[in-house]
């Protein structure tokens, strides 16, 4: 990595003021736990003059259930803490399981919720400095015609990354909202609307975050009573790996049939992939082989695999089957 100035603001406002508002201005980078940013610096994917550490900012480490049953998660809460919290595990299993599925114990001990939700993609062309692809301002997506075993089967084009965050599908399934603070003020938006496809915001970005916006907290509204949830993540290697595919599923049942469902897919699209038509299909059905089959077909409708990633279709269907069965 190149030499940089290290800045350690004490408040969110100071931090935001140190950041350039234009996302394309990479002269400064925000750092929380550094588990993603350090790898980007090391591989010279970003070469900022200044690194702004969030670690000195007080008040970003809350993790509490409010009286209305909603959960507030400060941006600096570590994945380890989130995964281990007894309340979170009991009430929002999908979130605790997603946090526990990230990386290794070391990564979870240092990595934060804000960093997890704002991490950059792992596409191996993006991560290789020599390959100046669309995401780095080049004029070609090398994965599209190259080695694309790990790339997107849904929502791809012109870039075919998969969003790497495990928390994002879980939080989108839980209808979470995120708060972003910049010198222009604060805004709160649904996490579902925070993530965008390359066709919507261009291949160089994954979210609607402005360069000087600091994500301060995530709020999970109280789920309707009776929710059961799970995060089924498939990694090629158990010890630490990103999802080849993942299913975040929240289910409400009544009288043996599904009353309501929220389903979000991870590891298969450039953003957490909601599939409302599958949620609709599930309503009123009991979980049996036929339901699993139909839901699998519906959830992957529109999938357009590249040369080497067609397996993600049956894989995702298999994970969905497992998730449905485990909650019924």
């Amino acid at each position, binding site marked *: 990595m*190149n030499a940089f100035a290290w800045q350690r603001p004490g408040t969110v406002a100071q931090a935001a003021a140190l950041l350039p508002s234009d996302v394309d201005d990479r002269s400064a980078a925000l750092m929380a736990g550094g588990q993603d940013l350090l790898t980007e610096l090391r591989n010279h994917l970003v070469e900022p003059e200044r690194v702004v550490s969030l670690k000195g900012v007080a008040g970003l480490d809350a993790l509490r259930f409010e009286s209305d049953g909603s959960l507030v998660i400060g941006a600096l809460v570590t994945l380890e803490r989130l995964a281990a919290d007894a309340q979170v595990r009991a009430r929002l299993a999908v979130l605790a399981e997603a946090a526990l599925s990230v990386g290794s114990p070391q990564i979870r001990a240092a990595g934060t919720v804000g960093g997890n939700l704002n991490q950059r993609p792992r596409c*191996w*062309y993006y991560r290789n400095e020599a390959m100046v692809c669309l995401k780095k301002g080049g004029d070609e997506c090398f994965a599209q015609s*190259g080695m694309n075993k790990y790339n997107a089967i849904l929502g791809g084009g012109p870039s075919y990354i998969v969003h790497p965050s495990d928390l994002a599908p879980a939080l989108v399934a839980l209808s979470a909202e995120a708060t972003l603070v910049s010198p222009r003020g604060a805004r709160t938006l649904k996490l579902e609307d925070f993530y965008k496809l390359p066709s919507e915001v261009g291949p160089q970005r994954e979210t609607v975050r402005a360069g000087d916006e600091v994500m301060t907290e995530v709020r999970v509204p109280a789920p309707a009573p009776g929710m059961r949830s799970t995060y089924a993540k498939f990694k090629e290697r*158990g*010890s630490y790996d990103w999802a080849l595919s993942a299913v975040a599923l929240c289910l409400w049942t009544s009288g043996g049939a599904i009353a309501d469902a929220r389903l979000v897919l991870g590891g298969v699209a450039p953003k957490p992939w909601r599939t409302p038509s599958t949620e609709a299909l599930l309503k009123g059905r009991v979980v049996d082989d036929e339901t699993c089959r139909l839901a699998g077909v519906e959830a992957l409708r529109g999938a357009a695999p590249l040369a080497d*990633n067609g*397996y993600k279709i049956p894989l995702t269907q*298999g*994970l969905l089957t497992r998730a449905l069965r485990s909650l019924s």
Partner: protein
Amino acid sequence: MTAPDSNAAQIAAAAAAANALPPAADERPEWTPRAEMTVLNREIPRLDGPQKVTGRARYTHDVRLPGMVYARLVVTPYARADVGRISLTAARKVPGVVYAETVKADDEGVRYQGYDGILVVVAAETPEAAEDGVRAVRAKVTPLRPPLVTPEQALADGAPQITRRGNVSSESSRGDSDAAAAALEGCDAVVEATYTLPVQHHVCLETHGCVVDYRGGDSATVYHSSQYVTGGPQEFAQYLELPRGNVRVICEHMGGGFGSKFGAGTEGLLACQTAKALGRPVHLMLTREDEFLMAGNRSGSKQRMVGGATKDGKLRALLVEADRLGGVGQGSLPTPPYIYDVETSWSRLRSVHTATDSNRAQRSPGHPQASFAMESLVDELAYALSIDPLAMRLANLSDPVYHRQLQRAAREIGWDAHPHKTAHGAPDADGRALGIGFGVSTWGSSSRPDAIVEVRIHPDGSLEVSNAVQDIGQGSRTLVAAIVAEEFGLPVSAVTPRIGDSSLPTSVYSGGSITTGSVAPAVKDAAFNARTALAARVATALGVEPDTLVFRGGRVEVRDDPSVGMSWKGACALLGGDPLTASGKYRDHLHGERVHGAQAAKVSVDVLTGRVRVLRMVCVQDQGIPFNRMALRSQINGGLIQALSYGLFEERVIDPIHGVMLSDDLEAYKIAGAQEMPEFTVILDDDDDRQAAMGMAEAPNIPGHGAIANAVYNACGVRVRDMPLTPDKILTKWLEMQR
């Protein structure tokens, strides 16, 4: 790279010396019968274990010397490229940078990925400054297309020539193809299949490199992560242009070699050149990316096979056409059929070159590739004939050792009670299927005659054993001490081993499982000579015959009358002022050859996700005298883990259009971790009663991935012929089968 053979002259000279003085028959050292051993044939914890787990062990990477500079390489990522002007002006201006020189001649391009991709060496006062220097180098590099990184590109009409030998070399054939084809006619089952294996990296945790301590003058010390310490001075002296006797090479501890660290390498040459230019110590260790690009690998392989067997399970015919895929290297593959007896066989082998890093020796070079193809083929024929794959193996292995070992492995893994032996099984309601598979291995375990060992007994009772041998993880430090302790009836802690230094008596390289078989006899010889000399002193003092004395339990005493004797310390005190030094050399009668192993794997295959979970691996392995049972088991565990990792994950990935390596870190180049570890059952084959020293580290690495692949088939009928067994392949094949 220096082949170990480059020291052939030295070896021959040592052999001649060894033969010049035939020992009197009655003075021959012999291994103590196993049942009488008090130190050996037991569990001996590694002497450097505490140092290693507490981080105190000093590896080459850790060496810090006064005035030392850090060197880094500028390496092109492309397999083939034109290189225009290289500008070092900015690099030389980076604060802290003291050296920046091009490696390439003007207009010299990059012909292959690996050492040829090194453009510039930069050295600086700190690693950070060196990296800044690397970043400041400006070079105009234009990648060439096609990059010639796949065999298809290399074999295409009009493909540019990759090596001086062309794009295909070293063709050889054995057997009569007409006879083999005719033999197929009489077979009841014929299987035609192509088996492919990817390029595997050694993945040494400690990357390649050295620290050259040269400050001008006529001598130097080199700290080198090396599998051949004794051979080091020759190469480094040449690079430093110093007399060989003035260069000392040290390797105290090693973070893995697996066959990739016999020589100094280009990194060693560049470190020497930099040290010479600066007159300062130079630290040059490769980065992980460099390591993946240029530090060698296990060659890939493509084996087209046609095999036939008759109803009785006998292999009658085999035709093999195999490509070794070793980049600009030759690749390696033993001539088929591998281990199994086949009545009539024909094979044609060749090296197909690509513009990628040369393969190097890697733990059992060529054997895991050959084993996978042959074990798969035998398995496929067994199922085609509805024969138990275990019985099929026994029918085609003439060596009775394999029968004993395979049956033992089968018993341990529960083959008898396994519900489906002659046809594959099916998944349960939840989508999981269980299967068992087998494989066998062999290794020559030869020896080299050049080891010389010195044992020194001090008057205060302390004891040293010295030999230049490196401990690359196999436990040679502990072994040399334990053999001496056994000889004197002392605990291992009473012996101080001195190893890993070329100024110590000559040793051998660690490769091909020769270390134990070559060094242990010399240690035994030296210890025997020291004991004989000390026994003579004690005998005189006690007024008894030397041959009545035994060394046991910390005493030297008359065998049949323990009341006549003295303590070890008392005996050593007889030496007076000077230590007793005895040397020993390699003794062929103490060494044995050829080890055997049988393995079984039990897996669970999840047909909903394609995950292969290895539940258990059993290995039955012989090795002559099991000197250190704990070290042996840990060697075998390591072999099983390497095979599992190779079978499930490992694969070098290079983009075929741009020639850039995509798997150049430990995120994309996946190796097995704690979560993948099955239960290991390691059985040291004590029915092997050969009283001989031999190494066996290669053998456990050979058949595991093949056994796993066979277990996957046995579980659910998915036959993967192209390694590794990743979920995408399993899932795709499973769904094809369902159609």
